[in-house]
């Protein structure tokens, strides 16, 4: 293994990005998934479709629109500038923002499925025992949807680590700020440094395998709970 300082910097940045994005996605994704599993509003379809959009859109489309929207004349850019935050492209928080959108379906969909699988009955029973809606959510929904949360966290984290196209479009390749592992591998390959590209790529292959192995192991262990109606 021959990892340069720049490689290690890129690895740390990637871990920092994926962790931040996963935490934010759990905070944002949980209410969305809960709302989707309970609502009969006519907006349910459109909201679900918007959340799932990054699954279908090529990262180049998403990256291109984000670059324009987050730019000084885009609606996000105008908002962030009026808040005194400057513009988001070429910053770590710009990557966080883009990754939250890009990885959203990978977090919301497992949570939505897990919450829907709980069904109405446990909640109705709890309601007859005078549990408040707040109580019901924290003592019934969260524990019963635990496998969904585990899956969602792992998928959200792994998908952010594997992100490339969007970051390439809005990152600007700044060391320790926006140059993540996938971009670093791309740089190595493009500048014909195949040995360094191999080391870093091999590390990513092993990492991805371990993550997926962990995912399937937890799923097997908890599949009975997850399926409970």
């Amino acid at each position, binding site marked *: 293994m021959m990892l340069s300082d720049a490689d290690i910097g890129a690895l740390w940045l990637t871990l920092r990005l994926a962790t931040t994005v996963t935490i934010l996605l759990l905070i944002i994704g949980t209410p969305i998934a809960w709302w989707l599993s309970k609502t009969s509003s006519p907006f349910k379809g459109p909201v679900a479709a918007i959340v799932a959009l990054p699954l279908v859109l090529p990262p180049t489309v998403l990256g291109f629109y984000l670059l324009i929207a987050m730019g000084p004349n885009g609606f996000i850019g105008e908002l962030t500038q009026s808040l005194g935050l400057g513009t988001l492209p070429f910053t770590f928080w710009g990557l966080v923002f883009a990754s939250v959108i890009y990885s959203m379906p990978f977090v919301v969909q497992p949570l939505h499925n897990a919450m829907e699988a709980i069904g109405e009955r446990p909640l109705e029973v709890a309601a007859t025992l005078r549990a408040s809606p707040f109580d019901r959510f924290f003592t019934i929904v969260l524990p019963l949807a635990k496998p969904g949360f585990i899956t969602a966290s792992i998928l959200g984290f792994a998908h952010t680590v594997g992100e490339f196209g969007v970051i390439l479009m809005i990152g*600007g390749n700044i060391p320790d700020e926006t140059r993540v592992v996938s971009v670093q591998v791309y740089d190595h390959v493009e500048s014909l440094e195949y040995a360094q590209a191999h080391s870093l790529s091999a590390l990513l292959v092993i990492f991805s395998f371990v993550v997926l192995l962990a995912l399937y192991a937890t799923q097997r262990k908890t599949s009975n709970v997850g399926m409970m109606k």
Partner: protein
Amino acid sequence: MHLVRSFSFHLYSITLLLWCTSSQGESIHIAVASNFTHTMKALISEFEQNSPHKIKASYGSSGKIYAQIKHGAPFKLFFSADQSKPLALYNEGLTHSKPFTYALGGLALWSNNKHFNGENLESVLLSGEFNKLAIANPKLAPYGIAAIEVLKNMNLVEATRKKWVRGENIAQTYQFVRTENADIGFVAFSQIVRQPFYWKVPSNLYQPIRQDAVLLKHKSEKNGINNKAALDFIQFLNSLKSQAIIQSYGYRTENNAYIELEMSNKNT
């Protein structure tokens, strides 16, 4: 009897016609560095008007094309953005020709921000009053290497380093400036040749950006070069007409861009 003879004559001429078109009109794939995209499209459309051959071009970064060629991509010609990749392929014995220079690129400092309209962009660069300076990644793109050379010669490397944003190639660098996410950026002169406001960087501030091409060898070619289309196209590139097209896109050309072919199989 007469009828039969005339029929067979027709058959003969149709066969001849088909044979002629199939032997004359070839279709070849070529790979082109992305900074040369527009120019190559214009060149190909000009070439195809007077030739039975068809040219199918793929555009991308030189590094990616290089990797693809090494792994058997079916390109007959490779137009790189630099000199090193065609030279590497030549040294590895994967080409029929030595690399030859097809265009010399120029560098320009450009802004799309109305704020800088009509201002001298050189003084903007010197003043440091801009949010970001977009450059192509010098590790990957010859235009990035040239941009760094310019900054070195102007003693601005340390002063501006914190404001650099790097595009993976010159097309992405252009995009950063175009969307105004970066106030100014070093782009290829060929990209903004039709824009109103730019500073054309004096050529004494950087080494000329020589873009080289090579004719590629393929394992299937047992009898040396058998591709007339590729050779015709190279010949066309040397014509005054194509040199004028290349220059109209902001490149310089050298008229000694002849090509030395190495016959891969001298016995045949």
